[in-house]
């Protein structure tokens, strides 16, 4: 049984946002509840295991847990609860709803370069046209097309005047 510490705990790429984390934790809690009920149920009684998501399965597999083990489930729930409270979160706003592939690529880079347990909060801001706006705990990064236009306003003005003249 591999019991990773909290710092080494790996979040799967399919678990991107804090909403995904909350959902996964609920699934895990449901599995744990089912297991608890199954242990007190009479032998031979038919029971239906709750469906688990791909993210939960991937997370269990990546971190070497066994959901049949009560200790693993308890430990896993504890870690997820801690992550839910304290995992570093970045808020990213896009002009359109980002596809899963794009989010996977972004979260891969962020977890490799910034923090391995980083979570995203995705927002929509259609007025930015293209690019994105990133907000960390106390900083604001505008990578939108609008900001690029503002940054290059003098160049635009120069080109415009050249075109007019």
């Amino acid at each position, binding site marked *: 049984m591999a019991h990773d510490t909290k710092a080494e705990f790996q979040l799967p790429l399919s678990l991107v946002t804090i909403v995904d984390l909350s959902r996964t934790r609920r699934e895990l809690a449901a599995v744990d509840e089912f297991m608890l009920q199954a242990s007190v149920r009479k032998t031979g009684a038919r029971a239906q295991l709750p469906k688990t998501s791909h993210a939960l399965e991937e997370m269990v597999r990546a971190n070497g847990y066994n959901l049949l083990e009560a200790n693993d489930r308890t430990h896993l729930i504890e870690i997820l609860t801690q992550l839910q409270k304290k995992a570093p979160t970045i808020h990213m706003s896009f002009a359109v709803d980002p596809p899963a592939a794009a989010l996977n690529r972004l979260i891969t880079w962020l977890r490799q370069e910034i923090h391995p347990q980083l979570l995203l909060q995705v927002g929509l801001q259609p007025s930015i046209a293209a690019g994105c706006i990133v907000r960390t705990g106390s900083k604001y*990064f505008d990578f939108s097309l609008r900001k690029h236009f503002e940054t290059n306003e003098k160049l635009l003005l120069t080109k415009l005047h050249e075109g007019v003249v």
Partner: protein
Amino acid sequence: MGTTVVHIVGYILIVSAIVFGALGAILALLHDPHKPKKSAKGSAKAAAESQAESSQAYSEVAEKDVEHIFNNEFREELRNRGRLHFEKIIGENAMFLQQDLRLTTSQLNDYMKQEITRTLKDEFGKYEESIMDAKQLAIDSISKTQQAIEEQREILGKQLKDQVASEKLRLITHFEQNMAEIINHYVLAAIGDQIDLSDQLEYILNDLETNKKAILEDIQNGA
């Protein structure tokens, strides 16, 4: 005009005098054939009385002769003659009167024509003068109005030009100040639904890479 009326009245008086004179003569002939003559007063009354008696005798004889001569046919003849003479005089004078009347009427017509022409000419002259004055006044007024309009037009033109220049400057300034927003809005409206996030990932990752240090510091400080 006054002279012509005096002439007409004079002719009428002359004709009336002639007519009445003739009438008087005829009446004297007709109604006073036996008027006694005044006898001369003599010194001797007796002689006179005798003479009167003889005269009376003669008169009676003469009366008889006169009645014999101036009998009714002769008197009727005289009346007829007098009537004819009177009619002749009346006709002649009527002709003269008619000629005079025609002449007077002609003169009166000429006079009236002249007077009317002169009056009309004077009135037309005054009317023309009034019209000319009114025309001059109207021309002056129009000229002043044109001048005022021209001045107003120049003022309005200048104001409009200034306002256009000001508005142009304001629009250019506004455009330049908000150009990034305008272009962004244009891009969004033109191709906003065609921009795929996957195509932007490289740029986003480049931006993240550029700001990696700041993000990392903020995350570590937050954690």
